């Protein structure tokens, strides 16, 4: 067991490229939980999440040799999962939840001390500036900037034309720049 914990993700990935199912089991145990949580926050249907999770790891099994060794394996996995989610949602229009959309509705603009720390450490001023964007712009920022989708994939996800995504992103970035320049916290 200890020996398993000592094996880093890249090493396990190399073993998976060599058809080692045990190595993939270890990767699954490490990454499936947070992946499923992150997917669930974007898609209400448990079956869809299960299918996307299965597709993601099958893509991992078949494509483990394609990882170029740059960055975190976790980030690469999320990239695969996000794309699988998009293609699945194209086929079945499941209930879609975009977390940034309900910020204004759910939470008052007052930030608790903990949130201040969180935002300050992870995003700096960007976090609170995001709060001041409209829901549509926030959704675009979420998809493209935070989840790493291309503008075309984001367009498919949100069900809007690609040009709309591009223009919203452009406006969002402009807003953010302005907010940050004004020093709003």
């Amino acid at each position: 067991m200890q020996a398993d914990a000592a094996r880093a993700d890249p090493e396990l990935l190399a073993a998976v490229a060599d058809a080692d199912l045990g190595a993939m089991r270890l990767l699954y145990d490490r990454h499936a939980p947070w992946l499923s949580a992150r997917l669930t926050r974007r898609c209400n249907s448990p079956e869809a999440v299960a299918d996307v999770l299965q597709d993601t790891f099958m893509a991992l099994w078949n494509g483990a040799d394609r990882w170029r060794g740059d960055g975190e394996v976790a980030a690469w996995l999320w990239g695969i999962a996000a794309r699988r989610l998009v293609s699945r949602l194209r086929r079945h229009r499941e209930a879609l939840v975009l977390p940034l959309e309900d910020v204004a509705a759910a939470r008052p603009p007052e930030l608790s001390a903990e949130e201040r720390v969180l935002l300050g450490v992870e995003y700096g001023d960007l976090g609170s500036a995001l709060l001041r964007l409209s829901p549509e712009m926030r959704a675009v920022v979420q998809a493209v900037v935070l989840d790493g989708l291309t503008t075309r994939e984001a367009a498919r996800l949100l069900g809007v034309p690609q040009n709309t995504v591009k223009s919203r992103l452009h406006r969002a970035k402009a807003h953010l720049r302005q907010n940050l320049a004004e020093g709003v916290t």
Partner: protein
Amino acid sequence: MSTTWHAADDLLARYVRGDADALQGASLEQHLVQCADCRARIATYIDAPPLDLVWTRIQEQVQAPVPTLVERVLIRLGVSEPDALLVAVAPSLRASWLFGLAITLGFVGLSAAYGGSRGLALFLLVAPLIPVAGVAFAYGPDVDPAYEVGVAVPYSAARLLLLRTSAVLATSLPLVLAAALLVPALSWTVVSWLLPALAFTAVMLAASTWTRPTVTGVGLGIVWVCAVGSAAIDDNPAAVLDPPLLLIYVAIGVAATAVLHLRIRRLTPLRSLS
């Protein structure tokens, strides 16, 4: 990005429940991609059974053998999945064999079309021996690396041999027929080669109750080479398909089938293995 900051337990719990607001969630998500410790900790808040279920599906999808092209075709034709698997394993029923067969027959057909008497002799030599080779390479200790362990199983050896032979005939006879259409000369030649072909196949099956298919195959090959060879020397290769001989082929086929029927229970060679 910070390396010493870790998500509080409360945040992880709320995030999994769906109670964390969008900004906290996004922030945590960006952190999780970088931090193995927090990824491990968040797993403790997530139900295992649904994840285990997905894993069993992944495991099955990874391990389950992918049906070959031949298997898929057989299943489409109504053969049961286990039978299709047993048939497709035979060397002479693999895609590579069939592809090589098509190429060979293309060459033989063309030489028959343009090669005159010698081309015709080549075709007549090859045509009935194709199913013979197919059966010889479908079954038996010389072509099956796991033959010995395959004897000690309850599955009927007779059924296996007949299944594979049917598949050999179904794949090779149409290919030979296609090549035959390129052969000029007598109209009957197009199909009369079927009689020695089927007779030899019956002999292969009957003889497999005595000896290994490769041995029988070689024997039949030698006999047929002599027959076609002697006819070709007289510059009349089609003589091997003269009506009196056709009757003999029919007789051989019938006799071999009868012998097979009588001895089918002896199909597992209980005598000397090698």
